[in-house]
């Protein structure tokens, strides 16, 4: 059996058993974003202006705090030791972990975004662009979160540390994502912003796995 497939099976089964946690995250996302239309007021112009930024920030804030749990259970249960002593490379473990995390924790946020666009009076015709931009953005986030999650393994107050580590690094992600979405709403050209976002994603795709592996190995020293 292929290593990625094996690790993915285990992650999928465990994540299925904890589906509630992940859906709670999506519910938090919806509630956080819906606070803005409720407090700013129903003026369509204002909502449309802040909409992209609010959706992106809410997605970031609801996804962030969970990243300290990314590898935490595996370290505590000893699966990390088993995985790093196996015939498969640690990279297949990391890849399966991230893909599964993306599907279970982040995909619900992406799927629910068109609903939030209605809250912000944005035309649903723009939903495909919004959804794919956010899908790319959260792909970036999961790669950042993987580095931060592995570095803070075993630390006390890991959730706060993870947030402090990721937020500054996520600024380019937010800037390009939000600018691109705003350009879409106002009918301007958004391809520059999304190209830069893709470049950021590809850059992280290269550096995140080795950085994560190094973080995991250093966590394994202490056991």
């Amino acid at each position, binding site marked *: *059996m292929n290593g990625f497939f*094996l690790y993915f*099976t*285990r992650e999928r*089964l*465990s994540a299925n*058993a*904890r589906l509630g946690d992940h859906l709670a995250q999506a519910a938090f996302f919806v509630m956080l974003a819906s606070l803005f239309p409720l407090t700013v007021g129903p003026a369509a112009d204002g909502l449309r202006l802040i909409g992209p930024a609010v959706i992106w920030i809410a997605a970031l804030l609801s996804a962030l705090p969970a990243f300290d749990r990314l590898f935490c*259970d595996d370290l*505590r*249960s*000893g*699966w990390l*030791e*088993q*995985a*790093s*002593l*196996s*015939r*498969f*490379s*640690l990279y297949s473990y990391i890849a399966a972990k991230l893909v599964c995390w993306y599907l279970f924790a982040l995909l619900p946020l992406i799927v629910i975004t068109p609903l939030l666009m209605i809250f912000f009076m944005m035309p649903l015709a723009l939903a495909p662009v919004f959804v794919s931009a956010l899908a790319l953005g959260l792909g970036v986030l999961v790669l950042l979160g993987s580095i931060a999650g592995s570095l803070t393994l075993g630390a006390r107050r890991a959730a706060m540390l993870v947030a402090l580590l990721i937020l500054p690094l996520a600024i380019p992600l937010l800037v390009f994502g939000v600018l691109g979405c705003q350009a879409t709403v106002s009918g301007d050209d958004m391809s520059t912003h999304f190209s830069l976002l893709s470049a950021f994603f590809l850059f992280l795709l290269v550096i995140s796995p080795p950085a994560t592996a190094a973080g995991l*190995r250093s966590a*394994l*020293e202490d*056991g």
Partner: protein
Amino acid sequence: MPFLRCAKKLDRATAPAYSTHTMTIEIKNLALRRGARWLCAGLCLSLAAGSTTVLRGPNGSGKSSFLRAVGGFLPLAEGQILYRDQPLVLEGPERGLNGCWYSHKDGLAAELSAGRSLQLTAALHGRNDELDAVLAADDFAIASFLDCEIRSLSTGQRQRVALSVFCLCTGPDYLWLMDEPDSGLDRQGRAALEALLARQQRAGGYCLLASHSAFSNSFSHRVIDSGQWI
């Protein structure tokens, strides 16, 4: 002489030359530390195929750290661990030996059933085909709770499930690293563990384990006192 302490300040050039038997894991002049604390220095040890080595010593004498170092988790402060004249690698496609790790953190998934969890760990070692035979033999008497979730099992039951993986992984290609495998077992479990260790020995595999209790003479093993490392 399988185990001897070298002088503490030996460098690699002056370290005594050992006959590097091809089928032996040679630990040469090993020093380990945790932070500022040295756990051992100048430790030389060879693990022959088909031998069982038991580490015994007081808490904090470095048994677990030594196992973690051999497993490749803890970096060596000094010295080398060699297998076939190459640094021992237990991980990934280029490994020299298959490492099997046991500690109280057993690697079982709390949310899954014992059977499923066992299946996944067996697949990790590429031994899924033999799983049915092991379940049929049921050395550790786990059949009755295979369908239960891991988190609902007692410590001893989890331990039996985790040890069942080792039934799949006997032979000269396997290095067992076990940290207190007998701590939570009852008398039958202990007997099964001893039978398992004897089997690994007969199959010509490697076994290094840390334990506080004495094993019976049902299999030959040498005991190393980690209390005298420093």
